[in-house]
C-alpha cells in the first residue's frame, strides 16, 4: 500500500494536490484512500479534476470470483489502461458482468460471494484489509443494464445523491448547481432537462433515465466508470446518445463497458477483451486493440464469436 501515491498514474494536477492537502495527524499517508482524505476534500478534488483528472488504471490479477462455491470467473488477468474505453464481450453467462462487479466490490455484496486474486486501482489493491469498499465505489462509478434512477428523487437530487449521501456533511450542504450542470452536460442530458430539474427522475424516458444514471455516477468525480450493458434496454437513438457520451468522457476517465452488441464494442472501445466459458467458469480468452480483435483475432474462439458463428 506504500506504493499507492506513486502507483497512481501520473497526473500532475490531481494526485499531488490530493496528497498535499491531506490534513490531520491521524490520516495515514500509507493508505491512499482514507476516509479523511475523501471526506474532507471533495471540493478540492472536484476542482482539480475538472482540469486534468488522475485517471485510473485497473490491474486485474488472477481473479477468481465465486458465487458460494461455484466459480463464475476463473483466473482472469487484465490490464485496463487509463483514459481508454475497454469493452468486455462474450456470450451470455461468461462472467462479463461478474468481472465488472468485482472491479468495484459490488460482487461481494451478494450473499455467499467471494473472490481470490486481486484488483488494483492505480497500484492500490481494492481487496486489501485496510480498504473500505464504500470508498472504492466513490472512485469507481457504475451504470447498470436497466436505468435505475431513484424513484423518490427529482432529477437534480438524483444527480447529487452520491455527493449528498456519500461524502459526509460537506456534500450535504449547498445546492451544488455547478455539479448538477457539469454532470448533466457530460452525460448529454443537460439541454433536455435544464428546465425540469425538479421533476421526478422516473418521469424521463428510458434513454434519458440512463443518461441521468450516467450523470449521477459522474457527479462524484470517479476515476473509472463501469458500464454493464448500458444500452441493452435502449432504442437506437438513445443508444447513440449514450455512445456519444462515452466518447466524450474518454478524455477524463477510464471506461469499462460490458456489451452484447459487437458493433457497439467496435464503435466505442479502444481495447476489447473477449471472454468465454471454459469448464463451467468464465475465462479471458483474448485481449487486444478493438481493430485486432475484430479483424485479426489470434484465437479461433474469438474469431468464431466476432464473426457470429456462435454466441
Amino acid at each position, binding site marked *: 500500500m506504500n506504493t499507492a501515491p506513486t502507483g497512481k498514474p501520473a497526473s500532475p494536477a490531481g494526485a499531488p494536490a490530493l496528497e498535499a492537502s491531506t490534513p490531520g495527524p491521524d490520516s495515514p499517508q500509507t493508505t491512499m484512500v482514507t476516509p479523511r482524505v475523501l471526506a474532507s476534500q471533495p471540493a478540492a478534488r472536484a476542482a482539480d479534476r475538472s482540469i486534468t483528472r488522475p485517471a485510473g488504471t485497473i490491474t486485474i490479477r488472477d481473479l477468481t470470483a465465486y458465487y458460494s462455491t461455484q466459480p463464475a470467473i476463473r483466473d482472469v488477468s487484465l490490464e485496463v489502461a487509463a483514459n481508454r474505453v475497454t469493452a468486455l464481450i462474450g456470450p451470455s453467462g461468461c462472467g462479463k458482468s461478474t468481472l465488472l462487479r468485482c472491479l*468495484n466490490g*459490488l460482487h461481494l*455484496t451478494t450473499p455467499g460471494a467471494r473472490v481470490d486474486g486481486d484488483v488494483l486501482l492505480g497500484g492500490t489493491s481494492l481487496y486489501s484489509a485496510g480498504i473500505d469498499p*464504500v*470508498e*472504492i*465505489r*466513490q*472512485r469507481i*462509478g*457504475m451504470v*447498470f443494464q*436497466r436505468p*435505475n434512477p*431513484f*424513484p*423518490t428523487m*427529482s432529477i437534480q437530487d438524483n444527480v447529487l*445523491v*452520491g455527493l449528498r*449521501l*456519500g*461524502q459526509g456533511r460537506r456534500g450535504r450542504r449547498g445546492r451544488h448547481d455547478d455539479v448538477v450542470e457539469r454532470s448533466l452536460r457530460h452525460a448529454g442530458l443537460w439541454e433536455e432537462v435544464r428546465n425540469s430539474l425538479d*421533476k*421526478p*427522475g*422516473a*418521469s424521463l424516458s428510458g434513454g434519458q433515465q440512463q443518461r441521468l*444514471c450516467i450523470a*449521477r*455516477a459522474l457527479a*462524484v468525480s470517479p476515476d473509472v466508470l*463501469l458500464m454493464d450493458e448500458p444500452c441493452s434496454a435502449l432504442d437506437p437513438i438513445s443508444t447513440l446518445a449514450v455512445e456519444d457520451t462515452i466518447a466524450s468522457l474518454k478524455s477524463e476517465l477510464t471506461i469499462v463497458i460490458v456489451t452484447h452488441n459487437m458493433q457497439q464494442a467496435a464503435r466505442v472501445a479502444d481495447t476489447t477483451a473477449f471472454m468465454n466459458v471454459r469448464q463451467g467458469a468464465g475465462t479471458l480468452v483474448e485481449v487486444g486493440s478493438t481493430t485486432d480483435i475484430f479483424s485479426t483475432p489470434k484465437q479461433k474462439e474469438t474469431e468464431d464469436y466476432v464473426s457470429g458463428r456462435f454466441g
Partner: protein
Amino acid sequence: MSPNPPRTPPDLVSDPAAPDTAPGVPVAAGTSDTADSTEAATATAVATMPTRPPLGQSTTATARRKRKNITMIVVLSAVLALAIAVLVWVLGYVAAEGLKYLSPQFLTHTPPGNPSAGGGGFANGIIGSLIIVGIATAISIPIGIAAAVYLHEYGGRVAKVARFVTDVLVGVPTIVTGAFVYALIVIRYGYSGYAGAIALAAIMLPLIIRATEEMLRTVPRELREASLALGISKSRTIVSIVLPTASSGIITGCMLAIARAMGETAPLLLTVLGNDLFVETNPDHRMATLSLQVFSNAITGFQAAQGRAWAGALTMVLLVLIFTAIARIAGRRTAVSGGKR
C-alpha cells in the same frame, strides 16, 4: 364447418372439410384427433399442427369459453358485492346509530355519574385513547421498523428465528398479551396508562415488523446496488434510499397497526381498567379509553348509555379515518413522486 373456407397454404392449415389442395395428402375427415393422426402419418411437416377451422368459425369452444367467462365475472362480482356490503352495512349502521348521539357535547364532556342518564360524552375516553395509543405508537414504530430493517437487510440465522416468532406473535390473541402485561407490570405497579400502552405496543410490534419487512422486500435490488455503486454506505442506503422508497407501504402498515390498537379492548381491561369519572391525562394512573367506554356503556342495558356507546364507536372509526388520511397525505409528500416504475 364451412364447406368453402378461405384458401390457406396446405402446409400450414389443412381443413378436414376442404377439398384437398396438395396431391398425395388424403382428405382427413372427422374430428381433429383423427385428422391429426392421419396427417402425422402422411405429412411430417404438419405433424404437430392441430387442424383448425378458419378464424371466426370455431363455435363450440369459443362459446364455452365465453359462457365460462361470463359465469366467473358474475360470481366474482357477487362475492365482491357481498364483501363490500357487509363492510358498508357495519359502517353505515355505526354511523346511523352514532350520529344520533354524536355532538360537540359528546366530544367535550365526561359521562354522567348515573349511566342511565342522558347527556355527557366520552371526552376522557378520547383523550385517554389518544394518549395510550400515542405512547404505544411511539414505542412500537421505531422498534418495529428497526427490527424489520435488521431482519431484511442484515438477516442471518437469528433473523429466521425472529421472523418465525414474529409470525407466531401476530396470531397470539390479544387477551393473552394483556394477561402477560397484567402479570408482569400491573401486579407490581397497578393499573396504568403505561401498562396499557405497553400491551398495545406488544400487539402492534409484530404487525409493524411484518408490514415493513414486506415493503422492504418490494424495493428492487437494483436500487440498492445503484446506491452502493455511488459510494454510499449500506446504512445510508437503507436510511436515505430504501426506507423512503418503501415509505408509503410502511406508513400504511403502521396505520393498520394503529387502527388495530385503537379498537383493542380486552388487553386494556387488564391493564388500564378504565375511568369513567373524569379526564385523566397522567398515564401513570388508570385511564379511560374509547374502546373501554364503548364496552362498559354498551353492556349496561340503559338506552342512553348504549347511545353513547354507538357514538363512541363512530368516534373511533372517524379517528382512524382521520389518522389514515393524514398519514396518506404525509406519505405522498415524502414518497415516490410520480414515475413509471
